[in-house]
């Protein structure tokens, strides 16, 4: 212990003695450790931290799956009820569905994210209410279902954390509901709900048929199902049993359950599934940055080791064993790493809020992300390992050899072995930074390609918001309301045109329905949209054939539809679909005539190819809520916000506007995850390149100082400035070139792993690889040029006199 304290004290003195060296080493390490810590703090919370439910790893998301395509979808109530009744592997199963409700009674109405739940929803997650109680089986009975459990967030925001609220009524969709409990703010199992409601049938009703018993519906898929594994049951056992149940149901209900399997996914995987590859990519990237930082410090230490051979040999002569010398040198490097670690963690604590600000919602929603105890432990471990990693080679080098040799060589020392190690380190640095540059180049190109995608409509000057009447209102009341709102919006000064649609592109969510052609039993699928006539014009969706929906259609007994280009191509290849009919679509058994074909839109996001769509007119078909789209005459559609709120209030003052945004904002949100990955990887690649350039500069500066004598001789033999420049730059560029080649080879292998994150570009895109290689070579040239210029200033007389 005493010798350790002595080593630490001596190490501190050594670091103080060379502040320039200490500063550069600490800076390189701090950058690496800060990047690693910041990304790890996200990974720790999002991927590694168990969800805040008791035994959370046993909670599963249960979804129906198509055995042919592997596509997963929501469950139908009848299937869910059969799964629940027949399985022996789950202690609980529960189902839920989003059920937005209008909350009134305060200063302003608000559309709140409600969730309708089945009986065992709360026991399944195992989280008790913070105030009052959760929902009980008795609440799931007709007549006693007007109770609600509030989320902690809504309770605080809307009700000022009023503890007397439990037992009192609030108004949802114009009806009184009794608040029976308040959940902790962290309770958010489906990433959606702000309040939870029971269902009169024990299973949530279909949103379009709120008053109909859903329990026998097998072909309407709208439920999110959950399950908790019984103690001792493995996921594999559960999968096997559920597969057997699905096979039985398929046999029993061949019409609705053809190819229908069951998919079980751990709840954490389900929640973070999409963001996982991005986070893992970033974690690898920061590990590379840290490795490059370590290589830089190892290079600095090697250069210093040359100057310290005399000290080390004297220590050896005085009786220090090799192990003792290595230990002392390692103490120095670990101390250096720990200082770098402290600065790095401080830097990370400062960076994490900025990181979260630019992160997509699926990361930002984890409010606990930060430099916590786990992250701190990780950073300390990383620092110590880094210290050993970059300190070991120099320590081994310095501790080797014998006293006489060192003392004889005096100040100049021996440099051959160190030079080779240093070169290897620099080649590795260049190679690693090329991999990062290639990765970031591919993500940048993907992003550019994505932004070039035509969404199928004009995203500029569009204001979008959602309104919905209570589910108790009649379809006629709903249609009338939408038409009135559209009319009022249309009449606003500054509005070019306005329309309404059941689901607007990029808003998240979709609804698909089956249909057939007359005289054929072949089943097709299409996404359903219900819109007002001016919707297409307002969005800028082009009419390609036939006619648009009209005001007359709403009141006509002839059912009409407009289809998109994709459906025309898929269902009527080489034919004119105008005048043709579809049957068994939505709630209509009878024929619906196709009157027009419009252009495709990218509904889910820019990267998902357009799917077949069928547009029906409001009046003939109905939807419980509608998106209003308003094309502004000016460049800022949000300037219409107040006028739009007033327009809606003038029709019904109790109807709130939800999700009010500009379409540009919705577009930006839809690409946020890509942008996040692209920006971060580019930052890390830039950092890596900078560190590699500094490493190359260091090695070449050292090489020049070692070659002064040689350069002097060459100049005496007639070498000109250009010759010396070529000599030094050539040496550096050979290292950089080797690094670039190795980096390219590794990139070809590694970028394949990120192919799921790419769009419109191959993981081996030669142009991207060429550009990043050229960029790195250019930076390497610059890093070489400075020491090379210094080499040309060598005075041959001075160099030759230096014997």
């Amino acid at each position, binding site marked *: 212990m005493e010798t350790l304290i002595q080593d630490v004290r001596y190490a501190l003195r050594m670091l103080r003695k060379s502040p320039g060296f200490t500063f550069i080493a600490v800076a390189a390490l701090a950058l690496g450790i800060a990047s690693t810590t910041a990304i790890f703090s996200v990974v720790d919370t999002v991927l590694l931290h168990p969800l805040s439910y008791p035994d959370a790893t046993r909670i599963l998301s249960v979804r129906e799956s198509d055995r042919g395509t592997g596509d997963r979808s929501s469950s139908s109530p009848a299937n869910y009820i059969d799964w629940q009744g027949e399985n022996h592997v789950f202690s609980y199963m529960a189902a839920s569905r989003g059920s937005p409700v209008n909350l009134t009674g305060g200063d302003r109405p608000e559309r709140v994210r409600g969730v309708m739940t089945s009986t065992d929803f709360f026991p399944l997650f195992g989280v008790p209410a913070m105030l009052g109680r959760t929902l009980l089986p008795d609440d799931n009975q007709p007549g006693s279902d007007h109770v609600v459990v509030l989320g902690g967030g809504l309770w605080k925001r809307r009700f000022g954390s009023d503890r007397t609220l439990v037992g009192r009524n609030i108004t949802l969709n114009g009806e009184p509901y009794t608040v029976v409990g308040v959940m902790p703010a962290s309770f958010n199992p489906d990433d959606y709900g702000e309040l939870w409601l029971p269902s009169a049938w024990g299973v949530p009703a279909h949103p379009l048929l709120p008053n109909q018993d859903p329990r026998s519906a097998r072909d309407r898929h709208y439920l999110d199902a959950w399950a908790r594994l019984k103690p001792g049951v493995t996921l594999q056992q559960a999968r096997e049993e559920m597969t057997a149940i699905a096979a039985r149901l398929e046999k029993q209900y061949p019409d609705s359950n053809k190819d229908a399997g069951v998919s079980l996914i751990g709840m954490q995987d389900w929640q973070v599934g999409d963001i996982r590859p991005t986070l893992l990519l970033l974690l690898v990237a920061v590990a590379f940055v840290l490795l490059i930082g370590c290589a830089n410090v190892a290079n600095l230490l090697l250069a210093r080791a040359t100057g310290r051979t005399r000290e080390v040999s004297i220590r050896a002569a005085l009786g220090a064993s090799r192990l003792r010398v290595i230990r002392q040198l390692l103490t120095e490097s670990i101390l250096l790493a720990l200082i770098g670690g402290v600065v790095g963690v401080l830097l990370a604590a400062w960076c994490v809020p900025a990181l979260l600000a630019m992160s997509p919602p699926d990361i930002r929603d984890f409010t606990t992300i930060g430099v916590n105890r786990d992250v701190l432990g990780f950073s300390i471990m990383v620092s110590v390992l880094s210290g050993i990693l970059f300190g070991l080679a120099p320590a081994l080098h310095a501790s080797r050899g014998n006293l006489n040799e060192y003392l004889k060589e005096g100040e100049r020392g021996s440099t051959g072995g160190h030079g080779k190690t240093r070169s290897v380190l620099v080649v590795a640095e260049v190679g690693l930074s090329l991999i990062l540059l290639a990765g970031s180049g591919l993500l940048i190109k993907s992003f550019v390609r994505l932004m070039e995608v035509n969404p199928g409509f004009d995203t500029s000057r569009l204001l979008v918001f959602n309104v919905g009447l209570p589910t108790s209102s009649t379809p006629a009341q709903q249609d009338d309301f939408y038409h009135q709102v559209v009319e009022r919006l249309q009449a606003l000064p500054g509005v070019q045109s306005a329309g309404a649609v059941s689901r607007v592109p990029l808003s998240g969510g979709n609804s698909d329905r089956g249909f057939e052609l007359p005289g054929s039993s072949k089943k097709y699928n299409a996404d359903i949209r219900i819109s007002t006539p001016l919707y297409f014009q307002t969005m800028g969706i082009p009419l390609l054939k036939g006619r648009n929906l009209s005001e007359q259609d709403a009141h006509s007994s002839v059912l009409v539809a407009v289809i998109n280009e994709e459906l025309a191509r898929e269902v009527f290849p080489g034919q004119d679909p105008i005048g043709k009919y579809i049957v068994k679509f939505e709630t209509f058994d009878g024929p619906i005539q196709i009157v027009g074909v419009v252009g495709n839109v990218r509904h889910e996001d820019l990267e998902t190819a357009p799917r077949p769509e069928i547009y029906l007119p409001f009046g003939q078909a109905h939807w419980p809520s509608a998106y209003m789209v308003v094309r502004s005459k000016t460049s800022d559609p949000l300037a219409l916000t107040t006028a739009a709120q007033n327009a809606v209030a003038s029709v019904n003052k109790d109807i709130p506007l939800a999700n009010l945004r500009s379409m540009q904002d919705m577009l930006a949100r839809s690409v946020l995850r890509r942008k996040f990955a692209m920006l971060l990887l580019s930052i890390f690649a830039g950092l890596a390149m900078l560190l590699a350039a500094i490493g190359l500069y260091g090695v070449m500066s050292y090489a020049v100082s070692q070659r002064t004598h*040689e350069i002097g*001789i*060459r*100049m*005496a*033999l*007639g*070498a*000109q400035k250009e*010759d010396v420049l070529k000599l030094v730059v050539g040496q550096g560029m050979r290292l950089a070139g080797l690094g670039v080649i190795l980096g390219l080879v590794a990139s070809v292998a590694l970028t394949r792993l990120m192919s799921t994150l790419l769009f419109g570009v191959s993981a081996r895109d030669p142009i991207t690889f060429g550009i990043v290689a050229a960029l790195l070579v250019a930076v390497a040239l610059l890093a070489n040029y400075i020491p090379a210029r210094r080499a040309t200033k060598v005075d*041959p*007389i001075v160099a*030759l*006199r230096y*014997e």
Partner: protein
Amino acid sequence: MIQLRNLERTYKTGAGVTYVLRRINLDIRDGEFITVMGPSGSGKSTLMSILGMLDDSWAGEYNFLEHEVHKLDRKNRAELNRKYIGFVFQSYHLLDNLTVYENLDVPLSYRNISRGQRASMVAEILDRFQIVGKKDLYPSQLSGGQQQLVGVARAVVGNPKLILADEPTGNLHSSQAKEIMDRFKKLNDAGTTIVQVTHSEVNAAYGHRTIQLFDGWITSDPANPQAKIPAVVTP
């Protein structure tokens, strides 16, 4: 071949200016073998550096062949060095990480000579110096005498008109020294002008004329009987 007129070389030091060479007047004819002698610090090596165009910071006049060196810029002086001058150093100054062959090729690589021509020039010099068998060895694998032989070979590989040898045998024992000096004699007989710095009277005897330097002054030059330190020196 060489005319120096009132050539002076100074160094700035903390205390002021230190004179290394003072009012040097020297004529060297084509084909001469000159020996420069003098105690340490007398300015011998500096004089060699100036003659070899490695040192630019001097004042006075220097005519080399038909060139007025004092009017030339650094680049043109370096050009003269490459074209006409070969160096031999006391500590050989071979490049450690290059073979004998490569060492001989170095000065040629700085002239505008094709690879093929360079190869034949190096082959010719290896042959002439009888070191063909050593062409693939590294300097560390050679004795001191052999290293200096390579040093001389390297100096003459480009067929220089002038060879500047700064204590070429300083690190060699007498038999090796004789071999090197005989080699210089042969080169001089073949027409190459040689200026050598030496402390050895034996080596000096190889030359036609010996110049003595002291404290930066030429104190003796058989071709210039007036050469001596002035009675009162005013910097």
